[in-house]
């Protein structure tokens, strides 16, 4: 297996639209969650979300903006930024050995929702002609491939909230095994359509709005947590063999050491300690990393009652007494749950945190929960933490658990 370097990062998210911005906001604990101002908000029990400050009309020509759903535009924006930052990663590469791996949970749901509004709301048959092309889950990956002329595998993974961790992991396997020489990998999600917001609300997984401070509504690992907050955005990596990145003098931002997966095979929503622990175990095995080498974890940490206590128990099951010494960050408190893009954004945050020697805070952790008794780096960043190896956990409805093992560059 070859070593795999991350040589480019692209991000557009509720915490900002560049690696520097996202790190600064995450470090300071500034929340991207806010009260929704859309007309539909009055139909929502908790009118809150984490939106990306991204205007597709400004960033893309009208022809493209008209043909791509927001989730594809976010993906393309992040991919372009990652490629630009990777300084020549796509030059002099066999295009058939260059792939695209994108995770998304809901694909072009905004477009589909608009189509249903026309059909059922307005009782009109005039569905827009590009509805299928914009709505299909593989549109984002396809557009990235077209934009950069990448003719290798063009893959889309939809495993709910672990989609982009799976996408990055699968890309890592192809590059590490020698099948590919470069890949753009990550995730994108634009789930804030009325239909989607109501559907998530109906599932009773969405946080109650903190009326005094809507930005603090998501409270992972806190006893008074009440659920997740939906978010939108995209994060993409350029990954390539370590030696290739070194040879062309690339600025290496981190290393992907391994990836593991498991399936709960028990319940469609209820998380399982065994399943989550199995994914962490599988990732460590694939990476060839011993448990005592893990310095920090970016938790799945959704802020739901079930996830946070299950994840705590799973981390304990893997690390035993040493679990108390591992700083755990749950950044969804401030960027919301980007569903299929969440794992990619959290992978980016983990790489940046290691590079800049900081443990990112778990914000809004107000009340200790006896069932969540680990070190969650509550409410304030821990500076000077020189973690070498981190896990980035992603667990999903459907039971597809995925974990990345990441190492600091250099």
């Amino acid at each position, binding site marked *: 297996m070859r070593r795999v370097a991350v040589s480019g990062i692209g991000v557009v998210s509720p915490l900002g639209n560049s690696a520097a911005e996202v790190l600064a906001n995450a470090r300071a604990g500034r929340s991207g969650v806010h009260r929704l101002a859309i007309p539909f908000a009055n139909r929502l029990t908790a009118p809150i979300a984490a939106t990306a400050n991204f205007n597709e009309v400004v960033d893309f020509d009208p*022809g493209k903006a008209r043909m791509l759903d927001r989730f594809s535009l976010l993906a393309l924006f992040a991919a372009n930024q990652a490629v630009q930052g990777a300084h020549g990663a796509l030059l002099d590469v066999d295009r058939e050995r260059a792939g695209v791996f994108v995770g998304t949970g809901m694909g072009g749901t905004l477009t589909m929702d608009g189509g249903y509004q026309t059909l059922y709301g307005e009782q009109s048959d*005039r569905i827009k*002609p*590009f509805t299928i092309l914009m709505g299909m889950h593989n549109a984002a990956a396809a557009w990235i491939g077209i934009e950069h002329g990448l003719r290798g595998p063009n893959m889309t993974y939809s495993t709910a909230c672990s989609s982009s961790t799976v996408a990055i992991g699968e890309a890592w396997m192809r590059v590490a095994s020698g099948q590919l020489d470069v890949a753009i990998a990550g995730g994108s999600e634009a789930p804030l359509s009325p239909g989607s917001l109501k559907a998530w609300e109906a599932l009773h997984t969405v946080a109650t709005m903190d009326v005094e401070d809507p930005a603090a509504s998501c409270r992972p690992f806190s006893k008074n947590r009440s659920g997740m907050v939906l978010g939108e955005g995209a994060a993409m990596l350029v990954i390539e063999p370590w030696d290739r990145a070194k040879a062309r003098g690339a600025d290496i931002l981190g290393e992907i050491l391994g990836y593991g997966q498991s399936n709960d095979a028990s319940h469609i929503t209820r998380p399982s300690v065994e399943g989550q622990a199995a994914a962490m175990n599988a990732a460590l095995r694939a990476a060839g990393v011993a448990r005592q080498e893990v310095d920090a974890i970016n938790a799945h940490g959704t802020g739901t009652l079930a996830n946070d206590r299950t994840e705590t128990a799973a981390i304990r099951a893997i690390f035993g007494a040493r679990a108390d010494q591992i700083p755990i960050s749950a950044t969804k408190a401030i960027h919301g749950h980007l569903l299929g893009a969440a794992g990619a954004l959290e992978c980016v945050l983990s790489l940046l945190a290691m590079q800049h020697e900081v443990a990112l805070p778990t914000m809004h952790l107000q009340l200790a929960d006896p069932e969540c008794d680990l070190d969650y780096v509550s409410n304030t960043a821990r500076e000077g933490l020189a973690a070498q190896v981190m896990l980035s956990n992603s667990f999903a409805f459907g039971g597809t658990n995925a974990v990345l093992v990441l190492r600091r560059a250099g």
Partner: protein
Amino acid sequence: MTTTFERLSAILMKDFKLQSDRLTVDAPLESLGIDSLGTVELLWNIEDAFQIKLPSDPVDLPTLGDVVRYVDELIAKQGVVLAPAPPGEPALQAI
């Protein structure tokens, strides 16, 4: 009275951001950057602007002139009486 070509040109300028000097009856759609997908979108906009219902049969429309003829035929066949062009729509000279 606004001609079919003028109405078509208005759509192309507004939705496809094309300059009026490129819009001639013999201009191939391909040369205007309107490929097969673009034609699907154009026809969708035409249905609205001309208040006609397009048949689902595939149709070959290489030039703007062909589009005009096709639309005129459908207007005649469907007995559509077009409302005047909305105010603010560019008043184009027929070319």
